[in-house]
Structure formats: structure tokens, C-alpha cells
């Protein structure tokens, strides 16, 4: 299991996943806003 407080490499991996998830969410919100 990835623990962002165990090591910097785990923290970096979590950051990358986090950025990807946020980007997807923002994209969905912007698309929904544009369509409505």
C-alpha cells in the first residue's frame, strides 16, 4: 500500500495520482458546465 508519509517516492506517486484525478474531475465539471 502506498503511504505518502513513509517515503518521498510514495509521496511523489500519490501526488501524480492526485493530479491525474483532479484533472479528470475538473475536465468533467468544465464539460458539464459547457453543455448546460
Amino acid at each position: 500500500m502506498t503511504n505518502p508519509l513513509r517515503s518521498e517516492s510514495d509521496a511523489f506517486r500519490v501526488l501524480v495520482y492526485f493530479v491525474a484525478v483532479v484533472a479528470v474531475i475538473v475536465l468533467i465539471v468544465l464539460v458539464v458546465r459547457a453543455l448546460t
Partner: protein
Amino acid sequence: MEAASIAHAEHHGPPPAHRSSRVKAPMLGMLLFIMSEVMIFGAFFTAYFFIRIVNHNAWPAPGTVIPESVAGINTAILLSSSLTIHWALVSVKTGNRFGLKAGMVATFLLGLTFLTVQVNEYIHLGWAPHDSAQATVFYALTGLHGAHVFIGLCALLIVSIRAFRGHYTPEEHQGMEVPGIYWHFVDAMWIIVFTTIYVL
């Protein structure tokens, strides 16, 4: 006589601390610190939520402009700095001293650039924190994050100086791991601030 003096020395002062936790002390310290900082950001985001969602105030405030493109560039700068500090840590683990030093210097300079751009943005915004509730929460959230960047830069400066002095080895570099974790936390916080304040 010797046994008595040894017994005296063993009983002198407080007993050693009980270490039953499997968590290392520096990591526990960083965990508690990050948790407290998440609480502070949570409080500020709650204020933002009440101003924008609960009270239906316009965002941004009428007559004001929020510079998304400048903030977008700043986001790219801060994300790059996370890449460079990761490079520095990978380098120290593989004994690559050039990568270690270059990575730390690059991380510090990128962080400093971020902060400089942020301050420059404040100067050219054209509206002050007291102009509206929206302005207050904008300056509060970005300013709080900027303060965290400043703290991180202080830590990065110390790490960089120590890196140049040869204090880190592939076996012993915990003094780099903890600031590296903190820097990624600062970056993650900026992603949240950027998407809620500037983008959405």
C-alpha cells in the same frame, strides 16, 4: 564499588523513552504537522465554501478579474519543482551527486520563482483583501499557501547547502526525505487552491 557506581549511573536521570511505535519519530512529526496544516487549509476552504456556495456570492467578485493564465504557469512551475526534488532523491539513492545537487538547486529556484510570480500577481491584481469577502478569501487562501511555500523554501535551502557539503549518502538521507514529503504536500495543496480559486 564499580558495580555500585554503574548502578548509580543507570538510575541517574529519567528512564529512556518507551519506543513501542513502529513509526519513526521524524515521520510521526511530519504526519502531525501536515495534519494540522490540512486543518488550517480546511478552515479557510470552509470560509470559501460559505462565501461562494452558501451565500451565492459571484465568483470572482463583480468588477474583478482573477488571472488564471498566470496561475496556470505558476502551477506548471510548482509541479516541475516536485519533479526536480524527486530527481534529487532518486539521485541520492543511486549515488549520483550531480543529480542530487542539480535537483535541489533546481527545486529551490523553481519554488522561488513561484513565490516571486505570486507576489507580482498580488501587486498587479488591482484589488485589495478588504474590497470584498471574495477578495479576502482569495488573498487568505493564496497567502496561506504562499507562507507554506516560504517555509518549504527555507527547508530546501538547508537541504541544498547540506547536499553541497556532502552530508547525504545513499544510506543516510532522511534529512532529504522529510522536506521532500512536505514539498509534495505543498504542491498538492496548490492543485486544490488553483482548481477551486482560479479554474472552477
